[in-house]
């Protein structure tokens, strides 16, 4: 390589670096816009097939989404916020009641009596004080948990408003989809053209299908869980069902977390503790329907990730950025994993590595 070439490449790299630095705040917007366009794409294609211009179809789909959101918003948000406030109030009043009020609950008082009798039989054991200590800690935790949840819900709502500023970007991404694809392919040298074509399709297919399936899953499980919980009689069924739906993004542990939220809602509202079993049953039925009907129809195959890896991913996501990252870490890792696998097999097939 001669000097002028080397100099040019250095110049080019410097420009690229500056570009990345300058546009660094925009990447999250762009990624969100891309995700949004993946969700919209099938609908726009549906209209396009019926000879409706692409930009008109996007506007039609936007209009439909907005009207759906408005309709759901006016019907659902008052219920949700009422149920949320209901929960917070209960917890606030619990602060004054503390351990004594919990000890009066039938199940816990039985346990407490048993532990007391154990203490009487075995000297120097003092399990009972440990038990009350544990209860005290649990109450403190329970006080913080909904606040934590509410904080994160405001974060989630913040994300939703961020996404709401994204449709403009998405509009152009969807409208000029073919132009962008041709633009990218024009940059690829002839030797790697077919490889690039294959990879673009794989990315399109994997990411698009996964994002669409995830959204559908969240909505479907949220609705089914809400219905199941209200049938069983869990307090605040719609709020709990919606949270269970969101947690369902995490495979294996998501449904369990949804059940935990339901159990918490039952225990702190002071409803019959037996209801917990019914809630578990409701969640189980929801999962059966989801795993056997919704998921195979929407996604086709399940996420092929070992539970251990899922657990580690969720923990790592939690360390990086709280509940939001816990939710998106598994899809993120899954997408990156399957794309690198595709890259590897295709590079091998085209004899590049």
């Amino acid at each position, binding site marked *: 390589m001669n000097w002028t070439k080397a100099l040019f490449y250095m110049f080019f790299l410097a420009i690229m670096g500056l570009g990345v630095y300058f546009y660094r705040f925009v990447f999250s917007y762009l990624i969100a816009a891309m995700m949004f366009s993946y969700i919209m794409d099938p609908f726009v*294609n549906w209209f*396009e*097939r019926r*000879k*409706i*211009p*692409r*930009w*008109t179809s996007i506007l039609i789909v936007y209009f439909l989404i907005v009207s759906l959101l408005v309709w759901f918003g006016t019907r659902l948000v008052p219920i949700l916020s009422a149920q949320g406030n209901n929960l917070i109030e209960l917890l606030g009043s619990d602060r004054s009641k503390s351990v004594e009020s919990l000890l009066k609950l039938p199940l816990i008082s039985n346990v407490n009596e048993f532990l007391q009798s154990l203490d009487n039989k075995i000297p120097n054991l003092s399990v009972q004080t440990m038990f009350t200590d544990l209860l005290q800690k649990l109450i403190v935790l329970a006080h913080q948990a909904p606040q934590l949840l509410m904080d994160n819900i405001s974060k989630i709502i913040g994300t939703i408003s961020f996404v709401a500023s994204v449709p403009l970007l998405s509009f152009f991404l969807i409208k000029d989809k*073919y132009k962008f694809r*041709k633009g990218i*392919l*024009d940059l690829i040298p*002839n*030797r790697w*053209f*077919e490889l690039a*074509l*294959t990879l673009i*399709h794989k990315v399109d297919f994997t990411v698009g299908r996964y994002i669409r399936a995830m959204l559908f899953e969240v909505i479907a499980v949220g609705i089914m869980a809400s219905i199941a919980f209200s049938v069983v009689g869990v307090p605040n069924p719609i709020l709990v069902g919606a949270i269970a739906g969101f947690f369902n993004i995490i495979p294996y542990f998501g449904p369990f977390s949804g059940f935990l939220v339901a159990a918490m809602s039952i225990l702190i509202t002071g409803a019959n503790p037996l209801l917990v079993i019914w809630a578990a049953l409701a969640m189980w039925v929801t999962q059966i329907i989801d795993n056997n009907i919704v998921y195979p129809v929407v996604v086709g195959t399940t996420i092929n990730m070992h539970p251990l890896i899922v657990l580690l991913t969720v923990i790592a996501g939690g360390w990086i950025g709280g509940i939001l990252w816990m939710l998106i870490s598994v899809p993120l890792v899954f997408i990156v994993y399957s794309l690198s696998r595709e890259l590897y097999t*295709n590079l091998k*097939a*085209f*004899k590049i590595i």
Partner: protein
Amino acid sequence: MNIFQWLGTILKKPDRYSELKQFGLFSQLNAYELFQISNIITERSFKAGEIIYEQGFPVEAIFLIQKGEVQLKGSNQPGGIRVLGQYQIIGLIDMFNAGTRSCSAHTVSPTSVLAISRTDLSDLIAGNPRLGNKILSSSCELLANRISELNSPV
């Protein structure tokens, strides 16, 4: 791709995508279908002697020769070598049997080709059965011609 552009293709510039009609594969398509095809087409240009693909590589694209000449080399070609010219299609047979390239292709003269991904094409066909039907019958026609060409005594 939209209805106004499509009307435009009929009213103002009837020959806008008509070059695509020169290819046997798309000879039966109407203006709107040609427009849909043009969305998934990428133009590539090759220098003389450049390799388009090699035997044993995975099949992803079919190539329509716009201008120039391409030489195919492989055991399934009569005499081992075959030269294709303008408005002919490379990779059509490989497209249907899913596996790898059965021959190698390199350019003889400077060539410009239109590349179509077979994934895109099959997606388009899945969404537009009528278009798919036309393309399918055209490709059957091409293959039938090829078979009779091979069977006829030279």
